[in-house]
């Protein structure tokens, strides 16, 4: 059976595909979260410098990663949408944004919680923290722009432009610890070097990161199904679908 990307780029087929995928990702996210949290709180050793407080890392780091990844994916879909005018890609970036914003907020919040014991302050104005805050603002700004424009075409395209312009912030967040001297920790997980963390910690973090991935995919797919239904409610297949329910 030949797999055709174009087939799945149509909202109708994608609606069905997404429906089949969601349970897998949702369950995956649930199981991995439980597993990850178990590792985080019961298997990982107490840190000799930071005591128990360091366990925030298991949520903080995956959340921070996801907030950036999701933005990049949104930028990708936006570029595709602007270039080829594909309906589905705009829907995808719309479906991703709230999840991204949640992760951005989570990374700020957990970071702040962590900062209090570590640096003695909820918040410091260093480059990484600031650029993470800006990322959050960007998410909010994008969603505000979408909601301010009623016309769907205009709102899709305007949002996509903004997403692309804001994409420059992501490398800034990522490299901020390298470019500026900051309070914040530098990267300790890298594809190039061997990690500088205890391996059980690393495993816990990775498990939770994958859980976050699954969660993001599941929520985004659920949301995109809703958006498809709303936008295609004029079409025959949605009318048929709604009649069945």
């Amino acid at each position, binding site marked *: 059976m030949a797999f055709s990307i174009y087939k799945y780029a149509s909202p109708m087929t994608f609606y069905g595909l997404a429906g089949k995928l969601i349970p897998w990702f949702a369950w995956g996210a649930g199981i991995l979260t439980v597993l990850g949290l178990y590792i985080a709180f019961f298997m990982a050793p107490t840190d000799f410098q930071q005591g128990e407080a360091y366990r925030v890392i298991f949520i903080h780091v995956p959340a921070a990663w996801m907030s950036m990844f999701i933005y990049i994916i949104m930028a990708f879909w936006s570029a595709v949408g602007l270039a080829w005018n594909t309906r589905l890609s705009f829907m995808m970036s719309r479906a991703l944004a709230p999840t991204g914003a949640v992760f951005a907020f989570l990374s700020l919040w957990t970071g702040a919680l962590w900062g209090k014991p570590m640096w003695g*302050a*909820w918040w410091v*104005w260093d480059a990484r923290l600031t650029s993470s*805050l800006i990322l959050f*603002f960007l998410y*909010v700004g994008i969603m*505000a722009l979408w909601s*301010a424009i009623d016309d769907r075409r205009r709102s899709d395209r305007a949002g996509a432009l903004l997403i692309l312009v804001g994409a420059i912030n992501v490398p800034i967040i990522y490299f901020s610890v390298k470019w500026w001297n900051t309070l914040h920790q530098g990267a300790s997980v890298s594809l190039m070097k061997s990690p500088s963390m205890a391996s059980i910690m690393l495993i816990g973090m990775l498990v939770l990161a994958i859980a976050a991935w699954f969660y993001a995919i599941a929520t985004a797919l659920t949301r995109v199904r809703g958006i498809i239904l709303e936008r295609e409610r004029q079409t025959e297949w949605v009318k048929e679908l709604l009649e069945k329910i």
Partner: protein
Amino acid sequence: MLHFLLTVIRRDLLLAARRKGDWLTSQFFFIMVVSMFPLGIGPEPEMLRRVAPGVMWVAALLASLLSLSRLFAEDYRDGSLEQMLLSPEPPVLLALGKALAHWLIYGIPLLLIAPVLGLQFGLPADVIGVLMLSLLIGTPVLSLLGGVGAALTLGLRGGGVLLTLLILPLYVPALIFGAGAVDSALAGLGPEANLSLLAAFAVLTLMVAPWVAASALKISIE
């Protein structure tokens, strides 16, 4: 009378609710202005704590100014201000209602955000209390005085900035007493003196500003 006042307020709340984004973004503006100062000034906590009252008050003032320039402008442009002035009720109620609605929409939320920002700047809890109190008394002043400015500059080219020019000097007492109260609380002195001056200023404004704004409206619309 009261019915008209309430209708004017309800109307503006409804319109604000329709412009979903608008309402929230004004609060974000406040957050952002406050958050930008540390970027410009540098991250030392002691220094930030010292400038916090001033920065927060100035930001509140700017946030209210920014939204004020639209207080009457849209109604003027689409002709509904004319229609409201043709209502049998006195225009002073119109001016008062619009200013109160502005306060409800833009002033109150500032009050609720301020504590969070205060924490970011490392202000102690009691000082944050004083900050909120000073904003509670001070923000209506901003809305009422701003109403006068908005009415005076209605339909003028570049009204928004002219408004700023007219109104900022009038805002100065509120700023001085308001930020002063927080400052003295921070320094461990009692904020009462500043707060009561602020309250007196607020009462004075409440009695005078709507009349002035109403006359200004009638003149501007001719």
